[in-house]
């Protein structure tokens, strides 16, 4: 059974890669795919801590994380379709006027 340290390092790397993708990509769909990569890093982390503490609370928390991920994906993709219908492009810079 591997220790918790290496799992936390792998989770941190996945999280940071997802964050980089969310910041750099301009395609709305790929931006939200990057947030899913960040979710994967978090799931690895909470399960590692569950193992480390010898209980199941982290695994139960991972299940609720999956619920949040599903909710986020459904609503985000619905909104992306609305935005695409309006502008006919997935470029997020088209909506830069919403910065105010």
């Amino acid at each position, binding site marked *: 059974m591997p220790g*918790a340290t290496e799992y936390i390092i792998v989770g941190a790397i996945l999280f940071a890669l997802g964050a980089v993708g969310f910041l750099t990509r301009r*395609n709305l769909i790929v931006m939200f*795919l990057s947030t899913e990569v960040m979710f994967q890093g978090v799931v690895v982390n909470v399960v590692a801590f569950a193992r480390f*503490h010898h209980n199941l609370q982290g695994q139960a928390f991972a*299940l609720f994380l999956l619920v949040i991920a599903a*909710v986020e994906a459904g*609503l985000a993709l*619905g909104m992306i379709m609305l935005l695409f219908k309006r502008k006919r*492009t997935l470029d997020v810079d088209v909506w830069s006027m919403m910065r105010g």
Partner: protein
Amino acid sequence: MNDMTPYILYSLFAAGAVAVYFRMPRAGESKLGVGAIFGIASLVGLLAVLHTRIAAPVDSRWYFYLFSTIAIAAAARVVTHPRPIWSAMYFILVVIAVAALLVLFGAEFVAIAVVIIYAGAILVTYLFVIMLAQQSGSPMYDRRAREPFAAVVAGFLITGVIAGKIAESPPALPSGVAQASDMILADSANAPELGNTLAIGNMVMTRYVVALEIAGALLLISMIGAIALSRKNVPSEAFDGSAMPLGQLGKEVDPY
């Protein structure tokens, strides 16, 4: 594990940041080869550091190396690939590798749930939207990354702070935690007949039953919201008339 480990990790993360920076889609001539070399070097170095300084010497660590390499490399391709459909495919690889890591860590039920929910449901929805909304060819916004340098520096800082700190002082159990009342593990000696799935089910249905009900209500609310959003009629403000109407793309242009 000694005092040098965090600094070795920092330099490896810097190499990985350089790799991601060079692999980003960009204008002008690309240096994909440089990025690939830096990426492979940082992954190999990370494995070497994990093996020699951090990982516990157990048999299953070779599987851990294999699946964590797959997960990290595929995640890097998700964020750097210029074609969204390939990003989605690499994300499936990330999900499967993460599920394998969870199985190694004794979380079988969460692993299966991750595969079913992510690879089975969420990814299919993403692929639907990509097919429906993807423009023909490779549009400009997929070939130019936005501020790749600043983002890569931010990612390097996040990883460095978390992983460097963890490697510097590995987490130590506070006293008394091991005697917690809900110490139910599939392989623990005091409950050998309880599987991981049964134990999680017991826990979620008793201790976290309120959270479970709230999660169900949240799913219902988001389903209603998604239906309301998708039925809404919006006027099109397309800049030119050249864009094809929704759902017509695959009929005229080969979608990859």
